[in-house]
Structure formats: structure tokens, C-alpha cells
């Protein structure tokens, strides 16, 4: 193949002049570059994490002393509900998807993500949903019944006003966004890999994101269904959750937790995927037991769908059924244990370099393992019946989410920051960040185990001094302040390094995967001539990069589609080019979703602009056809 000699110029709306400010804004809004979209997801998610952290600071301030009057019950209920909702829906899943959007195409050796316009649309939907629910919080319409919003408290009779509707519609926004990104990731990982990168040569991070994306496809519909039913009950008076008319409050719990349990694994599994490249790089050897690692990821994904009733052990479900879920909830520890043992073996037999990313990974080993141990405890029905809905569970969930997801994520940020920005983060500040965060998290959450055993239930806005819960709550609040200082150091580190960090070359860590083969930051397109892969560690193996793909066009930008299992070249694929229609469609969809909180007619009338925008989006353009015909070559 060779590049066409006559390039067809598309209309000028799609090639604005460089340097013109308005043109740069349009460019930014119309981008289909997976790196820019992925970075947007990551930055927006961290912004929401900051908001969620402020909310948790308010919670800890209120609970630091008994009978505090800092917050009344109404404000407290909105704040704790928004904290959970923000962290789970607006930070944890989107940030992982953002990392996947950025890294997966680079790691598999292709020029862009599959369906990049859909990915752009997904970002705008995520941003719109986040703005929507935070506007609600600022207007006193913040959700106030917890991040899992049980009915009947969230239902039409007891959920007064529009607060639960805002929560339910936020779910719709974020689940649409997550589902679409998952589809893009699956397609990229299966069909756009570099030639020679067979399934048994895919990096473990890509495996983790692939498995996570499949989980999203199967889990998200349950919560979309539940939130839609809740909206219908509240808005038009259906009876899904009304026991007097044949509905059931437990239906909500089943539907929500069928999603909700895989949800926490949606957050955990990408972090497992981040652990592997960091450990491999800083042990200077590949991770031990690649097949076991992959099978563990897949086993965890399957098993995670079999656990949901463990959130409902206190309800009147038959005991024998609950015991099944105890067994499944304990057994899911085994694939995670396999991974942990493989990593320890990797460290043990490698040559360890103790850098900041690895420090965060080591933090995972302590914090996640402790959370996993309490997880085994709460997996047991009788023990859970004592600690369910108490601060013991709050401690457990923060240990597994922070230890299991946030620590690897922070390690990943330190690891991939030089690739994304071209500059290294400060190691010195990084060590301080790690140390303070490790101490802060333990000081905040370890006392909560005792508080739960001492009878402190969740979601109480205050407590009496006679309960004796004051001292440990005070300690937890102090720990929260230490955590705040740690994250402030992180913010300082990021800001300083963006301007004055040490310049990073393509591969400052001497890592093994393909993203380290291109400049830092990577150019657009990622690969002028994508690699042909000859091994599992392309930059380490002799013959790891066995050649280059030549002849892919730039106008239109083309990717090479390969077969699913063996990554044999299949055909050339013209990648979509920048366009504003995903943004416009997202605005129209936002109007539909926001309107339908207030009136069912919004679904009808709102569908018209959505349909129009999407039709215009997908309508084929003549100049696109001319471009493609110009680069056609007959065999």
C-alpha cells in the first residue's frame, strides 16, 4: 500500500486555521482524539473527586463531636448522599474509563479508539450529568436518600420534591456514558490491535479494561432499569415499588445491587489492571503467571455477578438462598488472591526499584488486603447481620475502594503522567503524598471498624455523647484532615510539574508496553506507522517490534482492523474525523433527560431534536466518500 498522491480537502469548517482562538475552541469541542477525550474524563473525574472530598470533609466535621450543630439533618442527608453518589458515579468509574480511553489504543498499537465520536458524546453526557446533579445540590434539590436510594424512602410518597428524580436521572446520564465507552473499549481491544498482538500478548491493563467493559455492558442495564422505574413511579404513578398494588420495595434492592455489586468491581478491576504494568516495570520483569492473571480477571468478573444479595442479608430473603451468596462472596477472594500472589512473586523474583508509583502499589497490598479481610467477614450472613449498615461497613468499603482503586490509580497517575504531559512528577513530593495519604486513610477508617462493632449505624447526622462514640469519631475526623493535606500535596505536585517538572523522554521508566514507544506526549495520530508486535513485552522482548505497518492514509486517518484472536490484518478502516455533532446531540439529549424529570411530555418532544442531531451526525458526507475513494487501491 502507498499513500495517495491526491488528498481531497474537506470543507473548511473542518480545518480551521491554526492559532485562531475561536477555531481552537471549535477544535476542542469537535475533537475525536481519544487522548484528548480520555484526558477530559480523567481531569473532570478528579474535579468531581475534589467536590466529593469537600463533602466528606463536611461529614467528618459534623461527626467529629457528639450533638454537633454544624449541619442539620436535611443538609447532612444531602451532603452524605452526594458524597457517595459523586465518588461512585462521577469519579470512580469515569476516571478508570478515562484511563482506558487514553491508554488502550496506545497499548494495542492503533491510532485511535473505535467509535471516537461516540466516545466524545459519552464525555459530554457524563459532564452534563455531573453538572446537572451538582446544580441540584446548589438549588437544594440534592439527592438526600443515600447513594443507593432505597424505596420507599426515595419513592413518590416519602421522597418529597425532585431530589430523587435528580438522582435517578444522574444515573441515566452516567450509565449512558459508561455503556458507550465500554463499547468503544471492547471494540478497540478486539478489532484494532496491532498485527501480531494475539490475545495472549495483550497487556494485562488492556485485559482488565476489556473484562471491565464487558461487566459494564451486563451490569449497567439493571440500574438503568431500576432508575427508570423509580422515575416512572414518581412522575406518572406506576407501581413498580408499591406493595399495595403488586410491586415490591425489594425489587429496587435486587435491581440496584445486581448492578451495584459489579459496580464496585468495575472500579476495582481497572485498578488491578494498573497494578500489573507498574509492578512489572519496577521489578524489571514481566508479571509472573500471565495466563493465571488473565483467568483471574475473567473469574472475578463472572463471580461478581453472583454476589448481589450480600447487600440484602438483613431482609426477609430465605436463609438457604443467602448462604449461597456467602459462599460466592468468599470465593471471589480466590482469583484476587491469585493475582496478589503472582504480584508478590514478581516482586520477589525481580529487581525492585522503589519509585512513587510502586509505593502506591505497595499501599494497595496493605490497605486492600485489610479491606478484603473485612470483606470476608461481611460475606458471612450471621456476622453481616451484626455489622451491616454500621460504620464497620463504611470502614470496609473505604478500605477496599481506596486501597484497591485509589492507591493504584494514584500510582498510575505518577506512572503515566510523564507519558501524558511530557514531564515527570516530583518524586520527593510523591513520597510525602504517599506517606501522608497512607497514614491519613488508616487513621480515618480503621477506628470505624470499632465504631461499627460498638453500635454506630450509618447515615446518622449526629449521636449522643453517652454512646461513647465521640473519641473515635474525633480521631477519624483528624485522619480526614491528614488525608486532605496529602491530596493538597498531590495537587501542588501536579501543578508544579506541569510547568517545571523534569522533561520526560518516550520511556523514562524503561517500561515494556507500546505506549512507551512513542514520544511524550504522544503525537496525533499515535503512530505514523503502527508497529507489528512479536512478543508480550514489545519493548523488552528481542523482536518485540517485528516491523511497521506502512501505507495507512492520513486523510482520511486510517486504522488497521485485525482479527480478534490472532490479530491478523483484515482491512483498512477510515476513522471518523472531528465534528461538533456529538456535542450537539449531547445537548439535545441533556434537554430531554432534564425535561423528563419535570414532565413526561419531555420524552416525546425532546426526542425530536435528539433524533435530528443524531441523524445529522451520522449522515454520510460527500467529501468523506471522495477522500476514501482517493486512497483506494485495487488489488
Amino acid at each position, binding site marked *: 500500500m502507498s499513500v495517495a498522491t491526491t488528498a481531497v480537502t474537506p470543507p473548511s469548517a473542518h480545518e480551521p486555521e491554526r492559532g485562531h482562538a475561536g477555531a481552537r475552541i471549535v477544535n476542542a469541542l469537535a475533537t475525536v482524539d481519544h487522548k484528548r477525550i480520555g484526558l477530559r474524563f480523567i481531569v473532570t473525574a478528579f474535579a468531581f473527586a475534589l467536590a466529593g472530598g469537600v463533602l466528606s470533609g463536611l461529614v467528618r466535621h459534623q461527626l467529629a463531636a457528639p450533638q454537633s450543630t454544624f449541619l442539620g439533618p*436535611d443538609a447532612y442527608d444531602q451532603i452524605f448522599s452526594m458524597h457517595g453518589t459523586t465518588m461512585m458515579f462521577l469519579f470512580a468509574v469515569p476516571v478508570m474509563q478515562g484511563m482506558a480511553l487514553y491508554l488502550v489504543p496506545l497499548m494495542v498499537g492503533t491510532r485511535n479508539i473505535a467509535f471516537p465520536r461516540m466516545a466524545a458524546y459519552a464525555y459530554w453526557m457524563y459532564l452534563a450529568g455531573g453538572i446537572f446533579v451538582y*446544580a*441540584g445540590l446548589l*438549588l*437544594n*434539590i440534592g439527592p438526600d436518600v443515600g447513594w443507593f436510594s432505597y424505596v*420507599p424512602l426515595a*419513592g*413518590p*410518597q*416519602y421522597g*418529597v*420534591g*425532585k*431530589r430523587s428524580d435528580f438522582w435517578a436521572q444522574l444515573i441515566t446520564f452516567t450509565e449512558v456514558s459508561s455503556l458507550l465507552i465500554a463499547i468503544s473499549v471492547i471494540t478497540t481491544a478486539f478489532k484494532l490491535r496491532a498485527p501480531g498482538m494475539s490475545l495472549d500478548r495483550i497487556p494485562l491493563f488492556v485485559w482488565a479494561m476489556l473484562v471491565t467493559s464487558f461487566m459494564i455492558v451486563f451490569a449497567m442495564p439493571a440500574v438503568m432499569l431500576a432508575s427508570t422505574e423509580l422515575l416512572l*413511579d*414518581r*412522575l*406518572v*404513578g406506576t*407501581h413498580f*415499588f*408499591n*406493595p*399495595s*398494588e403488586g410491586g415490591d420495595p425489594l425489587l429496587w434492592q435486587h435491581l440496584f445491587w445486581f448492578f451495584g455489586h459489579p459496580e464496585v468491581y468495575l472500579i476495582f478491576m481497572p485498578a488491578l489492571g494498573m497494578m500489573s504494568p507498574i509492578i512489572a516495570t519496577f521489578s524489571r520483569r514481566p508479571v509472573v503467571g500471565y495466563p493465571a492473571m488473565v483467568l483471574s480477571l475473567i473469574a472475578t468478573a463472572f463471580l461478581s455477578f453472583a454476589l448481589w444479595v450480600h447487600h440484602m442479608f438483613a431482609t426477609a430473603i430465605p436463609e438457604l438462598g443467602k448462604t449461597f451468596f456467602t459462599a460466592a462472596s468468599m470465593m471471589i477472594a480466590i482469583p484476587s488472591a491469585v493475582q496478589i500472589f503472582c504480584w508478590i512473586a514478581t516482586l520477589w523474583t525481580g529487581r525492585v526499584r522503589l519509585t512513587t508509583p510502586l509505593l502506591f502499589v505497595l499501599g494497595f497490598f496493605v490497605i486492600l488486603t485489610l479491606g478484603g479481610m473485612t470483606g470476608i467477614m461481611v460475606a458471612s450472613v450471621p456476622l453481616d447481620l451484626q455489622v451491616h449498615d454500621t460504620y464497620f461497613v463504611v470502614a470496609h468499603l473505604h478500605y477496599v475502594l481506596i486501597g484497591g482503586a485509589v492507591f493504584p490509580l494514584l500510582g498510575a497517575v505518577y506512572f503515566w503522567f510523564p507519558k501524558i504531559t511530557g514531564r515527570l512528577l516530583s518524586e520527593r513530593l510523591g513520597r510525602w503524598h504517599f506517606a501522608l495519604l497512607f497514614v491519613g486513610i488508616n487513621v480515618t477508617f480503621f477506628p470505624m471498624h470499632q465504631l461499627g462493632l460498638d453500635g454506630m449505624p450509618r447515615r446518622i447526622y449526629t449521636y449522643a455523647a453517652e454512646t461513647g462514640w465521640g473519641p473515635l469519631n474525633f480521631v477519624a475526623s483528624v485522619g480526614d484532615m491528614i488525608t486532605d493535606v496529602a491530596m493538597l500535596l498531590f495537587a501542588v505536585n501536579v501543578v508544579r510539574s506541569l510547568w517545571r517538572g523534569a522533561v520526560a523522554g518516550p520511556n523514562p521508566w524503561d517500561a515494556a508496553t507500546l505506549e512507551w514507544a512513542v514520544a511524550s506526549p504522544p503525537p496525533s495520530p499515535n503512530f505514523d506507522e503502527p508497529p507489528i508486535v512479536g512478543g508480550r513485552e514489545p519493548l523488552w522482548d528481542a523482536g518485540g517490534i517485528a516491523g511497521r505497518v506502512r501505507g495507512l492514509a492520513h486523510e482520511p486517518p486510517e486504522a488497521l482492523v485485525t482479527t480478534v484472536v490472532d490479530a491478523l490484518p483484515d482491512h483498512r478502516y477510515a476513522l471518523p474525523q472531528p465534528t461538533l455533532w456529538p456535542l*450537539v446531540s449531547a*445537548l*439535545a439529549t*441533556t*434537554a430531554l433527560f*432534564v*425535561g423528563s424529570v*419535570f*414532565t413526561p411530555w419531555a420524552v416525546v418532544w425532546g426526542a425530536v*431534536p435528539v433524533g435530528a*442531531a443524531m441523524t445529522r451526525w451520522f449522515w454520510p458526507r460527500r467529501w468523506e466518500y471522495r477522500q476514501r475513494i482517493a486512497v483506494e487501491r485495487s488489488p
Partner: protein
Amino acid sequence: MNASRRMLPVCCVCVSLCACEREARTFPAPSPPPVPASQEIAAPARTAPPASGPNEKNAYAMSEGKRLFHWYNCAGCHAEGGGDKGPALMDDVWIYGSAPENIYATIVEGRPNGMPAFAGRITPEQTWQIVAYVRSMSGLVASTAAPGRDDAIAAHEPESRSERKPPKDAAPPAPTP
């Protein structure tokens, strides 16, 4: 495209205008007693009610009104709004007037033919909440603030879905002297 872009700020403005009143949760505060309790239990209230219903855009107040409608057994005579021994409350016929102050006077003073006087038994704030709820039954309040369906047997459509039934008031009677 422009219409969609303009709709979003318009929606925001509408949301913000509607939200503040709708979503306020004002828990009752103690107020000086307007009604002498023990010696004059049989006599209706003599004080003039305030000018207009304060609650018709407030979801919490109407939800409380609905709770009190059931707790104080209004349904015992009025059923779920369809009427039984007492007249229907969800239609457009208002014997004693549909204005909030009329309904307030009806509850506090009682009416001939069996409506008891609840003066001194229901606090003024609670009475205003019930007034707003009663008006919501015939769609006379903001539908985004009106209550949704009950978690009970569906005796009527949710108040938020009831179509507006403009009152066929005769000239409402003056409050009884």
C-alpha cells in the same frame, strides 16, 4: 441546533425559579397561641386567617398535608377525595369557596352539615399544609410540587397528574362573624 442550545439555559432558569420554593423544607417553629384552648373548645376561631396559601409551590408542605389528611382521618368523610358523607374534594365544586383562606376557614371553623371545627386541634401551620394538599387534589397547585402517588392502594391518580379543574365558585361566603 440553536433551539436545543437555547433550551438548556431556559430549562436552567425554570428549574432555578421553581426549585427554591419547591424544595425548601421548613420544619415548624413554635408560635404564640392564636386560639384559646380549654375554655372555648366548642367555639370556632375568630382570628382572620392570613392572606393566601403559603404552600402551593412547596413540595414538603403538600406532602405533610397529605400525611395529615390521612392521619386526621379526613378520608373518613371525604374518602380519598371522591367524597362519601362529606363532599368530594377533587372536583371543581367548592361549596364554601376554593381560595386557600376559604378552605382554611372551613377546616378551622367547621361548616354546617357535619364538617367539624378543628380549631385548637390542628395547628395553624398544619392546617395550611392540609389546605394546600386539598387544592392539589383538583390540580390547582404547581404540578411539579404536588405529591406523587401513595404507597397504598391506588384510589385516585397522583395529585401531580391531576388535571386542573378550575373551581366553579359561586361568590364565596364571607367568613362567619
